């Protein structure tokens, strides 16, 4: 049987030749992302700003009366609601943030959702309530704080781990690649204005783990090659390492993408944003482990003497084989 090969054997693509332009592009993208987040802002969900979101299905209608609902809910005096379709045309979510100055009132979010639900039920008998999320100002503040803490703690903890397992240059490289991934993902959320809630923080944490996994595979090979080819110039050695692991990178990314696409296309609509964030992160993460975390080692001046030249199991076997034969 002839097996499928996504990447031919012994590729020798000189990835690192383009490191400068790619770095410039990536840095520009990061700046653009930060600017976008600063100016346009993230479309924060009720988890993080407080308010309520309900999901309603109009069981006897082909399509939800969005315009009518917008007016009816708007008249309740809490402000303009955000009404979005999810899944079928008769399934919608109605989101309403806490009004200005409503952060202090602990029961306002609950009161809002109660009032909106009662209003819709009285005017639309076929409305089926599928979900309610209401979060008060205080709780949303806590969720935002712990969410951000977890993100930063994860990035720092992982970088420290890499530093311990490898060298400080690798730790910095990993931290930089992670910052790159997270920034670009946030930028994407600011651009598309997809809702950013607690689930998205979990998604970002997942992609941090995934992107790092990718980076580690490349780093692991770089370390091995640094011990093996002690005289090879660093750019060449990095290229070699990336090429040697290229097939694995492509196969694994494809595997994860297969499952994610299934989830994105066939999975529950409720977690669409979550899956989309991870899918996007897979691309960004794969790119960053090749173009962000590897080249930075050149500038941070990694050299073979960073590693004590110990003899690995493979080296030993090779030496014995040489001696024998």
């Amino acid at each position, binding site marked *: 049987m002839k097996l499928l090969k996504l990447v031919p054997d*012994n590729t020798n693509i000189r990835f690192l030749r383009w490191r400068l332009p790619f770095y410039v592009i990536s840095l520009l993208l990061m700046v653009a992302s930060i600017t976008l987040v600063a100016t346009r802002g993230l479309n924060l969900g009720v988890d993080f700003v407080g308010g309520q979101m309900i999901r309603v299905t109009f069981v006897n209608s082909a399509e939800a009366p969005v315009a009518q609902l917008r007016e009816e809910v708007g008249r309740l005096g809490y402000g303009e609601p955000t009404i979005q379709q999810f899944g079928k045309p008769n399934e919608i979510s109605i989101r309403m943030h806490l009004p200005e100055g409503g952060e202090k009132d602990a029961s306002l979010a609950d009161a809002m959702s109660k009032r909106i639900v009662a209003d819709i039920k009285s005017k639309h008998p076929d409305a089926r309530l599928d979900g309610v999320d209401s979060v*008060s100002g205080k*709780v949303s503040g806590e969720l935002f704080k712990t969410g951000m803490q977890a993100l930063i703690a994860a990035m720092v903890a992982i970088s420290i781990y890499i530093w311990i397992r490898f060298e400080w240059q690798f730790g910095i490289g990993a931290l930089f690649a992670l910052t790159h991934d997270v920034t670009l993902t946030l930028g994407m959320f600011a651009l598309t204005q997809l809702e950013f809630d607690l689930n998205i923080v979990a998604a970002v944490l997942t992609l941090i783990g995934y992107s790092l996994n990718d980076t580690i595979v490349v780093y692991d090979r770089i370390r091995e090659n640094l011990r093996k080819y002690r005289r090879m110039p660093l750019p060449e050695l990095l290229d070699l390492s990336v090429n040697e692991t290229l097939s694995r990178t492509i196969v694994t990314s494809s595997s994860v993408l297969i*499952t994610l696409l299934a989830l994105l296309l066939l999975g529950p609509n409720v977690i669409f944003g979550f899956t989309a964030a991870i899918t996007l992160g897979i691309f960004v993460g794969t790119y960053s482990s090749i173009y962000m975390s590897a080249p930075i080692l050149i500038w941070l001046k990694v050299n073979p003497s960073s590693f004590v030249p110990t003899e690995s199991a493979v080296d030993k076997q090779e030496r014995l084989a040489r001696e024998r034969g």
Partner: protein
Amino acid sequence: MLDFPRWKQAWLWFITLACALAALPSIFSVAGLPWPSALPNPKINLGLDLAGGSHLLLEASTDQVRRQRLDSMEEEVRNRLRQAEPQIQIGDISTRDGSVSFMLQDPAQIDAAREQLQTLTQGAGMTGQRDWDLQVLDGNRIVLTPTEAGLKLAVTQAMETATEVVRKRIDALGTREPTIIRQGDDRIVVQVPGLKDPAALKDLLGQTAKLEFKLVDTTANPAELAQGIAPPGAEIVYYADPAKDGAQPIAVRRLGGIKGDQLSNAQAGNNQQNNQPVVNITFDQQGGAKFAKLTTENVNRPFAIILDGKVLSAPNINEPIIGGTAQISGSFTAETANQLAIALRSGALPVDLKVVEERTVGPDLGADSIEKGMIAFGVGTLVLMAFMLFTYGRFGVYTCTALILNTLMILGIMAVIGTTLTLPGIAGFVLTIGAAVDANVLINERIREERARGRKVVQAVEFGYSEARSAIFDGNITNVIAATLMFLIGSGPVKGFAVVLMIGIATSVFTAVTLTRMWVAGWLRRARPTELVL
């Protein structure tokens, strides 16, 4: 490296099958098949977002606890000093600025007063601190200030009672398997699966159900009342239903009323004259005696029935009520009357609870999520397995077998340790499956590489496993770090995701590395291949 003695093989198979078999009851249950009742039956709990249900975070107001303690201290001080022998006269009592402060008419009684008041305070906490600080100012003014330790103790006690009351009320609704847990200093988490109408639950929990009977102050001037000015010793209360009873508030005496917390029963019923819904209450012995005394002493005067600070009705006391029963009328519907009866039976909440966070998922949306999640999982896994078979041939078969066992093991372990599967958990599951093949990909690619370098088959396989190991190890540790932090940030569904991720990391390393190595070793020994199709 490729050496697997029989005992080791047996042991590995035992672990694998034990974990995988534990998944069967859950799979049977989803497929709608009967599970033999003689066998153990560990099952995966479905989270509220899949099973449908409500998650409520209730918060108590510590300010209210503070306020209530001041008020009750004021009343206790008055009673105690009045009953003292000889009586201690006081004046200018106030509860402003967060402490109870008053003057003694006769400064000579300061020591006697101090002695009386000492008995009103008690120890709080481990440090020997008391719950109130007693200070004497200018020789004749006494100031009682609540200490932080005392307040903390009071909040803790209030929360303990509140949790009990919440439990009783939810049980009265007849819901199955509610979870009620105290969280932090002033919060309670309530999780009720499969609820039809969370609004009724919220109304019930939002009702403090503090029932009071207070005498109406008939001397009040209606014009002053409208401006919010109450006669001395009285307070202003509004009607619960201004549309029916009028927006004009009434004045009631602050002291001398009784609380409706000494009840032995409360039932919803109908008034026999006008057939309006009412709540019939029965006092316990002590409460009945107090109520009899109040009504006997105040015949032909109106008294107000006040629920949570709002007047339900203010009837005239026509004759003494000594039977220990009373009827509460107000603007009830059959539903609200029943709700009030439940609330009164379970006792009043010692402090108001507010819903500060709610997550409710309807049963239809939950069922839809399960179905779509399973379809996505099935399709994703099948396509992935085909991809692996086409890419790695024989080694792909090992990868796929490992994948199936991995899935079963995750489910089995989740069932045994009783974790909850949430919607993000399903996503975590799907993702785990995608990432689990990474270990096999690393190994297989490495074997390919070693073969290309001209190594013999056995050697190439051996190197493949040993050299891929450090990358697999480091990669999984970073994922564990990310998952742990997700677990710690803690909102329910995200926690579910993190748990699946962590279990998945452990089982995928086991199946993808250890098990496949055992199979490959067995094949190498049996077939002694000189060529690898990889």
